[in-house]
């Protein structure tokens, strides 16, 4: 009744106060905290949200999955060629020259994987990059080891080895590289290693046969890993793809994609170039030839070209067939910084042009060796800095290092700011 009286009194006196409504709220929150409206402090900056779902779908369907599928296809061809090679070795029982088809198929598989290296997203990164390291262990603490591979070769000859239980030192593309490209048939192990004590005494054809047989097993193991990777993403498999493209997960997945393309900085610039050229703290000598990627195939230029082209594709969201899709560049343009796209793409193109000029067998090995011999570490650093500053220099891996550094500088500043992502943990300090 008191409320009625109160309200009545209010009504009588209210005409002039008609607009003076009153609301009081205890625990003035919504039923759900999710219910609160957020508003920008500067309304003029508000615009329709970027279509992150389409971006994620594009990366999944047009960039990442085609790469994984291409890798499996390449491995299937490699498997066929290695089987043919082994069959020929077993049948002919004569020492064979390096099999061109096998090397060609291997190079193709590696080239595709070098694209996938900039796609460390999702299942390939589970358990500290377990699957990635199983496929390719370069730049890890358990990368391929020639002696371990020799031991496994012998053991595999004696009794079929299940590589699934073996360390990554005898698995993956880098192990296969040793088996396919190592020209000497002698063991890499010391004589103290009992398993390989009699290896060098074997006939050349026997050693070729045994290495070929392990190549078959490693390729099969790679195929299994590749299928596992595709199955993890596949609609018919574990359907990780759905988790990846879920717009509610756009934040972490955009960050994962961003982290992935920082491969260019950490793995390409620092590990593949910087350390062999003594431009990082990991190499305190004039140069570190042992740190070179692909020490047997020595096709470093080709690998870096793949990395750079994939970086460009990942940045622009381009499909493997070259079709432009929604990518980071679209976020940057959406945010109103299209000129950053122009600048970054120009830098990437410049790096690709130089990398293609350097794409000659063993050229990196040669330049690193010369630097070691000539003690030109400082000159290399100068070339890198000058290239990074836009100076036009003759093609060299030191200059390429600088061109990539120029890309990285813009990635660390403009890119992370505009796209609004943090630097990957592994890139939070610069190794230069």
């Amino acid at each position, binding site marked *: 009744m008191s409320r009625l009286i109160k309200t009545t009194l209010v009504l009588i006196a209210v*005409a002039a106060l008609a607009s003076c*409504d009153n609301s009081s709220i205890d625990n003035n929150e919504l039923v*759900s905290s*999710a219910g609160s*409206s957020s508003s920008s402090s500067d309304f003029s900056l508000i615009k329709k949200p970027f279509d992150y779902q389409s971006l994620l779908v594009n990366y999944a369907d047009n960039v990442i999955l085609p790469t994984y599928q291409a890798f499996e296809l390449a491995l299937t061809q490699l498997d066929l060629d290695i089987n043919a090679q082994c069959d020929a070795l077993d049948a002919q029982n004569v020492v064979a020259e390096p099999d061109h088809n096998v090397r060609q198929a291997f190079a193709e598989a590696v080239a595709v994987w070098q694209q996938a290296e900039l796609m460390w997203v999702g299942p390939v990164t589970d358990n500290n990059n377990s699957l990635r390291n199983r496929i390719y262990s370069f730049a890890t603490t358990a990368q391929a080891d020639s002696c371990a591979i020799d031991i496994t070769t012998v053991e595999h000859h004696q009794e079929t080895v299940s590589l699934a239980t073996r360390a990554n030192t005898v698995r993956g593309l880098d192990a296969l590289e040793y088996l396919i490209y190592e020209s000497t048939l002698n063991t890499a192990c010391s004589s103290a290693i009992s398993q390989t004590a009699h290896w060098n005494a074997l006939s050349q054809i026997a050693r070729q046969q045994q290495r070929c047989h392990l190549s078959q097993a490693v390729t099969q193991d790679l195929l299994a890993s590749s299928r596992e990777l595709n199955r993890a993403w596949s609609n018919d498999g574990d*359907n990780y793809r759905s988790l990846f493209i*879920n*717009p509610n997960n756009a934040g972490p997945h955009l960050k994962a994609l961003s982290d992935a393309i920082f491969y260019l900085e950490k793995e390409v610039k620092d590990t593949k170039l910087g350390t062999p050229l003594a431009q990082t703290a990991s190499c305190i000598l004039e140069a570190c030839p042992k740190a070179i990627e692909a020490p047997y195939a020595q096709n470093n230029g080709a690998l870096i070209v793949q990395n750079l082209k994939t970086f460009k594709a990942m940045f622009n969201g381009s499909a493997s067939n070259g079709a432009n899709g929604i990518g980071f560049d679209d976020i940057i343009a959406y945010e109103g910084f299209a000129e950053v796209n122009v600048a970054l793409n120009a830098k990437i193109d410049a790096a690709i042009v130089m990398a293609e000029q350097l794409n000659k067998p063993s050229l990196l090995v040669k330049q690193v060796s010369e630097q070691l011999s000539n003690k030109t570490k400082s000159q290399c650093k100068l070339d890198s800095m000058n290239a990074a500053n836009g100076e036009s220099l003759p093609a060299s891996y030191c200059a390429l290092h600088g061109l990539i550094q120029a890309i990285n500088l813009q990635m660390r500043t403009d890119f992370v700011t505009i796209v609004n992502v943090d630097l990957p943990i592994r890139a939070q300090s610069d190794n230069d």
Partner: protein
Amino acid sequence: MINLKGRLYIMRHKKISVVIALIATQGVTFNVWADHSKNSATPPIEEVYVTGGADAIRTMPGSATFIDADAIKEFDSTDLNDVLGQVPGVYIRFEDGYGLRPNIGIRGATADRSQKITLMEDGILIAPSPYAAPAAYYIPNVNRMDAVEVFKGPASIHYGPHTVGGALNMATRAVPSNTLGELSATFGTDNYQKYRGFYGDTIEGDNGHEWGYWLDALRYSADGFKELNQQDTGFVRNDINAKLQWKNEISQYPQTLIIKLGYADEDSDETYLGLSDADFAENAVQRYAASANDAFTSEHKQVHVIHAIDLTSNLTMNTRAYNHRFTRSWDKFDGFWEPPEGCGDLADCATDIQDVFAAAHSYPVEMGILRGEVNSRQEYEKIDVTNNAREYGSEGLEVTGDYNWQFNTIENTTTFGVRYHRDYVERDHSPKAYNMIDGQLVYDGVERENKTLNKSEADAIALYASHELEWNKLKVTAGLRVEDIDAQVTDYQAFAEQKNDAIKKRSDTVFIPGVGVFYQLYDSVGLLAGVNKGFSPAVAGSGAEPEKSINYEYGLRFSRGDLTADVIGFYSDYSNLIGRCRVSDSGCESGAEFDGGEADILGFEFTSDFNIALNTSLDLPISLVYTYTDATFGNSFVSGFSQWGTVIEGDELPYTPNHQAKLAVGLDADTWSLKTEAKFTGKMRELPDQGDYKAGEFTPSYTTLNVAAHYMPDDNWDILLAVENIFDKQVIVSRRPFGARPNQPFTVKAGVTYQF
């Protein structure tokens, strides 16, 4: 001539000699009308409604629309949406095709579950919980109504709490003065069946006492027009109502007492799950296997007690008491199961169903599971079927008075009223997860925690006072409404965990003034103008501001002979628009509210009726209704409400077409009639936006053509043949709640009514 419409009218009213206005609402007088027919040979008096009837609204100082029983009977409508198609300024968002739970908006107020309009039956708030949870999951069936009245502008402030858009009143039949019975049966496509029985009478006693009653039983059902794996997708609804009446018009204090009892139930296979656009294009009426377990059941009970007394020749007092209970259970597809344990660092494992439909081609697995073509393998690929069980209660007491007096040549009517109202909803939303296996939903057997277990309640005192003066050609009405609302929500789950925020409260006191003017400029032309405050309360526990606006309207009414034409412009200046989250909205909790800030809704409504007498026994009635609306947000903001999302100033409001129209042409003869109507609904955005319409974010414009024919061999029989959507035009009328859904397809129904 007395054409069919007139005969229908007589058929209904020939035994009704006294009609009591039952539908005065808070703040509106309730009058007892004399029994003219007893003392004269004049036709039975026309029922008097809140508006005063079809003729009275011609001079109302505010816009209103009156739909009489004949219009409802024209197509034997059971779908309120169909009936409201002839009301300008009313927007419908179709959902199930049968209008089981209509989405009605007025002048830009959101149509979502009719939550922003004041819904009444005989002037009594009839939504299950109009204050604490306004989404109207129950609406009386229009088929048993005698009239539907829609009020907008200043007229709507009489009927709170929602005054931003307007009010809708459904008037039940009056008690007949003599025996009146009616039996009807209608059959149609998709096994549509409707049966209705009505019987009423009045018994005259000594000393002026009269006791009257009617009983009304309605049952209608259909197998549903959607196709689902050899399952029905239809419904059965039963409606049983009784009205008991005592009155004495010759006592010292003439008075009337009416008791209304009502029971309604529904058992339907209705779902929120629609289709992807591609699947819609392939077969608009298919339903996915994932909706196979969806079922809605409800019960509604009501008691209305209405008393009117003339204390003096000038003062009439009305009292209304009401009590409603509504329970519902809805086992309903609610997306893919989100495992509580999560997926590592990811925010969500399961993809929100709205996101799936927004890019269906990108989700082949999810779409395959929905269709029953792919088996669930992951936890987050299970189907979430949640039983949204709720119990609603609503009750109140209202007293209004109406005092008529004269000052010189000025006729005055002072009206006042007070209403105490309380309502509540108890939500118990319990989920189950089902694996899709070989096209069948298979329960995983795991007990799950409730999604929602709470009670939202509100009590409100509403006061109303108004004054109307009539001086020569001028009529002015000014009024003020006061709503004092206390609301509370109790989260039982948080309460059990002894959390501090388990109980949240809010109080609002709001003053809602309004003034309207009508001036009869010429005999054939009247001008009207009005302004009122719009208000819609925020629900219990909400931190949002109440919805508020200033509404203006202005226009003219033209009437000459058989031609009437009204043009009324409107402008609703919202200072705050509210968005209310429902279960079908992603990213928010059911009941949560969101401030939308300023919005401007303006437009005009055109209504015209013209009757051409072709000869002495044949008329050609023509009517046209058109509404133009421009509804835009007035500021930019980012909202957690998924129906809004990111809003830029100037974005158009969703589900408000720029254009909608209805043209009806008929032929009325003595024993037959034919009516053809074309309904046009313009494109509607489904998300706030401006400029070009983006694919997947709007519903297309469409026109449907309906025809109804009646044959009445005598005063007792009425035979109906109606064809709706003749060209079977099916388009996406909405992508909410979950996916695209069509309007009703080509439908034929035939019925017969016998009165005795």
